[in-house]
C-alpha cells in the first residue's frame, strides 16, 4: 500500500485510456479496469497537458499523469479529448467585436469550436490575466473562452481589444 500522503505519479506504461460505448471516458489503471474516470488539471492555467489528476467516480485520486505526451497515442488522444470536454475553454481565433450595450459588454467571438458570444456585466470581474498575453474571458453564466496571446491575433481583433484589455 502506498503512503496516502504522497502524490502517486503514474508510470505511463501502466495506463490505458479509452472511450466507452456511451462516450464515457474510461481506462485501465495499473491493471485495474474502471468504466468511468474523472480527470482534473492540477494547474489549469500553467500546465494544460501536464500533471493531470486521475480520479474514480467517487472523486478519490488514483494518481497523477505527469505528461500526457508520454502516454500511448490512443490513450493520449482520448485523454486530450476528455480534457477538452471537462475544461470547456474554446480558444479565440478572432474578436469580431466588443460592444457596450446598455449595461452589458457583449463580445462576439470566433473560436476553434465555432462562433459564440459572451455577455458580461463589467470587465474588471470577468477578465483574468494569467500572464504573458493570455486572457481568460468568463461570461455571466460561467462560460469561458481563452485568448492564448492577444498580440498574436489579427489587426482587427487587436484594435477591438486595445481599449478593453
Amino acid at each position, binding site marked *: 500500500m502506498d503512503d496516502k500522503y504522497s502524490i502517486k505519479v503514474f508510470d505511463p506504461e501502466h495506463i490505458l485510456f479509452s472511450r*466507452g*460505448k*456511451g*462516450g*464515457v471516458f474510461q481506462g485501465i489503471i495499473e491493471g485495474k479496469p474502471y*468504466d*468511468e474516470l*474523472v480527470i482534473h488539471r492540477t494547474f*489549469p492555467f500553467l500546465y494544460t497537458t501536464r500533471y493531470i489528476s486521475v480520479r474514480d467516480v467517487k472523486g478519490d485520486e488514483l494518481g497523477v499523469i505527469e505528461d500526457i505526451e508520454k502516454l500511448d497515442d490512443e490513450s493520449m488522444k482520448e485523454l486530450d*479529448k476528455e480534457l*477538452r*470536454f*471537462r*475544461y*470547456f*475553454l*474554446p480558444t479565440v481565433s478572432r474578436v469580431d467585436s466588443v460592444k*457596450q*450595450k*446598455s*449595461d*452589458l459588454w*457583449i463580445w462576439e467571438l470566433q*473560436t476553434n*469550436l*465555432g*462562433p*459564440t*458570444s459572451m*455577455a458580461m*456585466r*463589467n*470587465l*474588471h*470581474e470577468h477578465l483574468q490575466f494569467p500572464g504573458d498575453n493570455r486572457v481568460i474571458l*468568463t*461570461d*455571466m*453564466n*460561467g*462560460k*469561458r473562452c481563452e485568448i492564448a496571446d492577444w498580440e498574436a491575433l489579427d489587426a482587427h481583433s487587436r484594435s477591438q481589444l486595445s*481599449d*478593453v*484589455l
Partner: protein
Amino acid sequence: MSVLDKLPVAIQTKLQQEPLFSGKTDLMTDGHFGVQWLTVTEQELMLWNVEGKQQLAIKLSEVTDARTAGGVGGGSLMIDTKKGPVVAARYTAALTTLFSFAAKLIGALAKGEERPVISEKEFPRYCPKCSNPLSEGTQVCPLCKNNKKVILRMLSYAMPYKLQMVAAGFLLILTTLVELIPPYLTKVMIDDVLQPKDTGSALLTVVIGLGVTALLMSVMQTVRGLIGVWVGSKLMGDLRKDVYSSLMRLSLAFFDRRQTSQFIGRVNSDSEAMRQFMTDGVIWASGESLRVVAIFIIMFGLDWKLTLFAMLPMPFMILVSMKLWPKIGRRWYQQWRAIFRLNVLVGDSLQGVRVVKAFGQEKTEMSRYAVANREVVRHNIRIEGLWQGVFPLFSFIAGIGTLLIWYNGGLSVIHNELQLGTLMALIAYLSMLFGPLQWVSQMINWASNAIAAADRVFEIMDTPSEVPEVKDPAVIGTIEGHVRFDKVTYGYEKHHPVIKDINLDVEAGEMIGLVGHSGAGKSTFINMICRFYDTDEGAISIDGIDLRRISQTDLRSQIGVVLQETFLFDGTIAENIAYSKPDATPVEIMQAAKIANAHDFIVRLPDGYDTRVGERGHRLSGGEKQRVSIARAIIHDPRILILDEATASVDTETERQIQEAITRLIKGRTTFAIAHRLSTLRNANRLVVLERGRIVEVGTHEELLEKKGAYHKLVEAQQELSKIKGVEG
C-alpha cells in the same frame, strides 16, 4: 409537465407522445458549439439534431440513474445504464441548472420516485427576445427592458435640489449675457470714441460700463459657485449613502466572491466622478451652449458673412468629438481597472502584512506592486495623452477660423467696408466662442468618466440580493426554536453542492453538535440557519415557518452567533457588548459580561467597560475577545444560538472559562455548535456527523461510539493526536 423549450416541429412530429421534458443544448456531443435537443418521455430519452435526426435513444427501463458531470465552463449529462454510463448531452455552464433538472427527472423516472417539479431557478437564463443571458435573480433582460439611460438616472439625483439648480442656472444665464457686454462696449469705444477722437464724457461712461459689468460678473460667479458647492456636496452625500446602503443590503454570497477592500475606494471615487459631472458638468455644459447661441446671434447681427467663415472648422470639430467619445470612455474604464487592480493588491498585502513580514517577502510584494503600478502609469499616459493631443488640435483648428476672419475682415476694413471696432468685436466674440468649443473635449472627459462611474455604481445598486426580503413576512414573535431541515442542498457555486440532501429535525432547546472533517460542510450548515444563503433545493423552517418567509431582521433578532473569528467593532467594550441592543443598561451589560466570564478581566482594565477596542483600540487577547463576543450573544438573548469553533484558538484554561460561559449561555436555547475538540461537545443532546456534505450519523456521543462508524474514527484520530501532544508537552 416540464416542457421547457418549444420543440422544433421536425422533432415534434417524430415523437410518439408528449414529452415530459424537452431542452436545448448549446454544445454538440463532440464538444463544438451547436444545438441539440434532449427529449424525455415516459418510455425513453432521446437526443436530436436541429434537423430532427435522432442521435441517441435510451429506454428508461435500461436506465439506473442520471447525473451531471460538471466540468469547468460546461458539463455533461450522464446516464447510468445497465450496460454502463452514457454521455447523453453536453452543454456550457449557462445551461447547468436546466440539465441538473433533467438529470433529476430522469433519475426519478428510472427509479420510480416522485418526479421533481421545476422551479423558476432552473429556467435557462436567456432573454427570450435577444438571447443574451439574464443576470441572476431576474427575468428582466437588461438589454431589452426600457432602460432609463444612465445619464437620466444619474441626473435624477439632482432632482431634490432642482430649486437650487434652477437658481444656479438662472444666474448662469445672466452671467453669460453680462459677459457678452464687454466686447460690444469695446466696439463702441473704438468706433464711437477713440476713432472719432471724441473727448466728451463718452469715454468715462464706457469705462464705467465696463467696470460695472466686471463687478456684476464676479458677484454672480461667487453666488453661483457657492450654490454649486452646496448642491455638489449634498449630491455626493446622497450618492455615497445610496451606494453604501446597497452594499449593506447585498447578501454574503456577493462579498464571498469579491475582495471587500475594493469597495472602500469605490464608494468615494465613483460618487465624486458622478458629482463632478452633475454639478460642474451640467451647469457648465448648459451655460456654454447658451453662450454659443447668444454669441452667434450677436455675431450674425454684426456681420453674417464673416461669421460664416468662423463656422467653417466647426463640423470637423464635432466629427472628431463624436469619434473620440466612445474611445475616451473605454480608456477611462481601462485606467480605472488598472487602479482597481493596484488597490486590490495593496488591500491584500496590507491585510496580510504579518504574513508578508514573517516570510520576508517585502521585496516580492514591492515588485508585484511595481508591475501593477507600471500598468497604471501606461494607462494614465494613454488617456491623458489622448486628451493632451486633442486639446491643441482643437485650438489649432479653432485658430483657423480666427485667421479667416482676420484676413477677410482685415480686407474689408482696409476697403472701408467694415468698421475696425466691429472687426475687433467679432474677433473677441470668436475667441469667446472657441473657448467653449475647445472645452467640448473636457466635457467628453467628464461625461465619460462619470458614466463609467455611474455604470459601476448602478451595477451595485441593481444587483439583487441573493437572499431577497419577502414582501409580507410572517409574524414570528418570540420563537420556540424548533428547526427543521428538509432535503436541503446548497453550494456556493451552484452545482457544486457543499451540503447535500440534509434532513434534520431539531427540537426547541436541543443542543446539536456538528462534527466532521474540515470541508465537510459544517460552517455552511450554520450559514444556512442564519440565512446568509438561500437553499438551492429543499427548505429550512423555524417553528414550521419557512426561513424565506421570515423577515431578516426578525430572524436575526432570534439568532445569536459566536464565531471563531471574533470581530469587535471600533468602539468601547460596552458598545460592543450592546451591539444588538443599544439601549441596554450598564447593569445589563455587566450581567452579560459576568455570565460570559468577562466581567472580571474587563473591570481590571484601566478604562474598564469604556476601553476602546477594534482597529485603533486596546488589543484584547483571543480569549478575551471571545468572551466579549459571548457577552454580545448573551445580551442579544437569542432563541437559537450558533457556536462556530468558539473555543478553537485559546489555551486550555481560557477554554475552560469560555466553556463555562457557553454552558450558561445555551441553557434553554436551541444550539448548534461546531467544535474541533470533540470533548467540548459532550453536553450536546445529539451529534450530527457530516461527511462530504451529507449527514452520515446522528446520535448521542455514546450511541455513536458504540456504532463504531465515522464518529468513532474521528474520536480515535483525536485521541491519537492528544497522545502526540502529551509527548510534546
